[in-house]
């Protein structure tokens, strides 16, 4: 591992993060808030730290695989550490633990929050909070790759280490920088469209932008205490349902559908399964709710669709307190959290593509019992999935479940009830942001002891970077010269 190379990249990453703090600063200046100074300080310190690191560690070498992993993982940790400065300087949080948790939750698009009263936050801080979502959604490293050239082959390593869906995600252009740019442009355009649609629904510009950030990144931070429940307009809720679904699809598909004018959505097996899961889960929850709640058809349909899509895409917006829902719906919502969006989306969790491979592999294994001599491969979109990827996915599933149980055990040891321990771990690992009970849509993560917050922060990082990228750094070999 060539640490100079790693730190020089992280230094440049910090400069980008610092630069992004300009946007909350502008909002703060516009509203003439007292937090202007705090944000300026945070910005200057981040920029300074970044510049010093870039200056100290100069390197022209190409990034290799192991450095790629280190840059991505450490990059996310550094970004979260410096990203928590605005909270600390403005006094939003007094402890670094809380500030780090909130920032990590933002960057990883988890949306779990410690703040209990959002409406007292200043505009600048509020905007920074939503902005961390938006930056993390498409990937801060991907932004870094898109903005800075001369990455060589290392860009691809970092792209793969960070991209949701890991090695299932494909490059859409021969050059990684071009791919990164296209993904970011798609992302920015969709966010822009959503903002306009929300403005049409009567939101003010600030809230529309913040909610567009939270939706497109499948994050879940809102500017309101009641979350989306604050907006009773069916229009806004339906728009958000549609855009949460859009954010959970492979963003490369939009580019292909527009540029190549082919029917890339229907040809994509993962998308078809994603749609099927979404529709069937909405239907099941709808029928479960309509029998037990006196809400009327439209409200029930909207609430069921909103909550199911929100959990499926791991956004974590809420329009209702599902702690009051029938148990069947609650269990379905938890199962949906484990599904997540498509590979190449901004959603978290296991991903539909991996589930597709797991399901097909199961079918093949059972089939082999009857036809032991058959030679059969798993095919997705009529292309054979290489054996190595199948094993990788099986291994990933095992690790995911292991991490889930170990995390639950740790949270239990810190004194949480079994429901809260399990769901707080799911909420963090799958980057959803809400669980059941006290960590549900009406509660917050404030009551969790500091050690628990660190555990959960780590789980968010594990979940966002899809385990392998983080775990590989625990191999001593990686750090050897």
């Amino acid at each position: 591992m060539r640490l100079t190379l790693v730190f020089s990249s992280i230094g440049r990453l910090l400069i980008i993060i610092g630069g992004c703090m300009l946007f909350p600063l502008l909002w703060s200046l516009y509203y003439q808030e007292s937090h202007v100074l705090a944000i300026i300080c945070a910005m200057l310190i981040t920029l300074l730290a970044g510049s010093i690191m870039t200056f100290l560690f100069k390197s022209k070498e190409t990034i290799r695989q192991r450095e790629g992993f280190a840059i991505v993982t450490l990059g996310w940790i550094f970004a979260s550490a410096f990203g928590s400065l605005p909270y600390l300087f403005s006094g939003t949080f007094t402890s670094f633990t809380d500030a780090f948790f909130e920032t990590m939750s933002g960057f990883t698009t988890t949306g779990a929050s410690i703040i209990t009263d959002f409406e007292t936050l200043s505009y600048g801080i509020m905007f920074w909070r939503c902005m961390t979502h938006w930056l993390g959604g498409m990937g801060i490293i991907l932004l870094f790759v898109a903005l800075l050239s001369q990455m060589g082959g290392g860009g691809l390593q970092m792209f793969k280490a960070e991209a949701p869906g890991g090695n299932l995600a494909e490059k859409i252009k021969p050059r990684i920088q071009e791919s990164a740019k296209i993904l970011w442009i798609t992302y920015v355009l969709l966010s822009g469209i959503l903002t306009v649609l929300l403005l049409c629904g009567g939101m003010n510009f600030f809230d529309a932008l913040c909610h567009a950030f939270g939706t497109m990144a499948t994050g879940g931070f809102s500017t309101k205490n009641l979350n989306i429940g604050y907006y009773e307009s069916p229009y806004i809720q339906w728009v958000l349902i549609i855009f949460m679904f859009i954010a959970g699809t492979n963003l490369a598909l939009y580019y292909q559908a527009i540029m190549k004018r082919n029917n890339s959505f229907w040809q994509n097996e993962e998308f078809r399964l994603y749609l099927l899961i979404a529709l069937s889960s909405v239907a099941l929850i709808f029928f479960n709710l309509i029998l037990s709640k006196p809400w009327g058809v439209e409200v029930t349909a909207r609430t069921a669709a909103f909550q199911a899509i929100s959990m499926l895409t791991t956004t974590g917006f809420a329009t209702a307190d599902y702690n009051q829902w029938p148990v069947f719906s609650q269990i379905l919502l938890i199962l949906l959290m484990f599904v997540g969006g498509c590979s190449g989306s901004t959603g978290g969790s296991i991903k539909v593509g991996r589930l597709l491979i797991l399901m097909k592999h199961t079918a093949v294994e059972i089939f082999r019992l009857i036809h032991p001599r058959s030679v059969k491969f798993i095919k997705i979109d009529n292309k054979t999935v290489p054996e190595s990827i199948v094993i990788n996915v099986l291994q990933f599933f095992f690790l995911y479940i292991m991490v889930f149980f170990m995390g639950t055990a740790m949270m239990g040891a810190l004194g949480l009830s079994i429901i809260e321990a399990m769901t707080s771990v799911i909420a963090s690992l799958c980057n959803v942001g809400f669980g059941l009970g006290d960590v549900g849509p009406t509660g917050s993560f404030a009551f969790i002891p500091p050690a628990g917050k660190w555990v959960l922060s780590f789980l968010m990082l594990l979940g966002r970077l899809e385990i392998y990228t983080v775990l590989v750094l625990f191999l001593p070999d990686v750090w050897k010269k």
Partner: protein
Amino acid sequence: MKAIIIGAGKVGFSIAQMLSFEGHDVVVIDRSTERLKTIDEHLDVQVVSGNGASVSVLKEAGVTEADLLAAVTELDELNIVSCIVARSLGVKRTIARVRNPEYVDLDKNTSKEALGIDLIINPERVTAMEIAKLATNAEAQVVEFFANGKIQLLEFEITSQNPIPDKELKDLNCPYPFLIVAILRNGKVIIPKGNDKIKFGDMIFILAQTKDMKDVERFFGQRRIKLENVVILGGGRIGYYLAQQLELRHINVKIIEKNLTRCQFLADNLNRTLVINGDGADLQLLEDENVGATDLFVALTGDDKLNILVSLLAKHLGTKKTIAQIRRSDYNPLVEKVGIDRVVSPRKLTAGAILAFVRKGKIISVTLLDDAGAEISELIVPETYRHSGKALKDVDFPSGAIVGGLMRENKVIVPRGHDIIIPGDRVIVFTLPNSTQKVQRFFS
């Protein structure tokens, strides 16, 4: 016409034979003097020893005044290069045998012209297409389509299960027009007249509109077999192409192949086909894979004896129909007697396709009917046709031939004696070998 054939293998031999019988000048080029010797002994052709892609050898063979060059060696690349060289030396038409689909499937419009090859023929693909055609009408021995698929020819056997009326042909009252163009009785081909009768054990060749064929078959008591399951033994090129074709027709396919790497290739490239890695001669495997319950078993390994043996095994286990690939054509008449329903030979089919191309011009297609030794050609009646407007019964149509179908302005006519032929019609003619020339003269 003067033709040069490069490659004196099985296909080369067949083409040389056919062209020579038709009275063309044939020169065969091959590297192996041994193979040339065999040809020289059996056929009335000239032989030249050497590399078919070499200019001096081609010149020695008289390439400059040749009308046709067919490169049919084992090597795709050599065939392609030979055609390019010969074209530059002034040959009018070129044919290349190319088996690797990667050379052929590039772009159907451009690659052939760019290479200067008029016909690229892939024997394995031709064979697979032929078997796929048979698979769609599994009850028939021969299936052919004419006039863009609007007219169909079937050959099937009249067995004791077909309750045919004991009537003369002209008295058969079927609501759907059809024509029996030939009857194969005791190894002899009869072109039937109105007063002939059908007997048990006859193989009949029937022409009818494709959309009526189902009802015509029912009229003769022939039941259509609906193919659902097919087992292919041998995952070579033919097996691979055949599986692709059957997949398109939504038929369940199993391929049994010995070689594991080949199995992996097949599993990778085919979508719904079940690939089984195993030895086809293993009776246990055939039973495990329930071969007895399949509708069609196709044996396509490179080994004739194995194909015959396993087809018989499959038949014994209960397979409804079996098709075997036999490369040595001298076996053919024997094999169908043993109980294998149908034999295909890539070499024969290739030769047929090349022959059709050679005769091209007015003739659209020529199909060789193996067991009858006859052929069916489809042609467009030229402006110079002498008997225009005369009823068929009044013209002196060559004996040993019969007009089986007509298409005029997209309308199909199953001809009777009072029908007329006018220039521009598409006619489908069934011809016995010795009448080919007469028929060509009749329509000139």
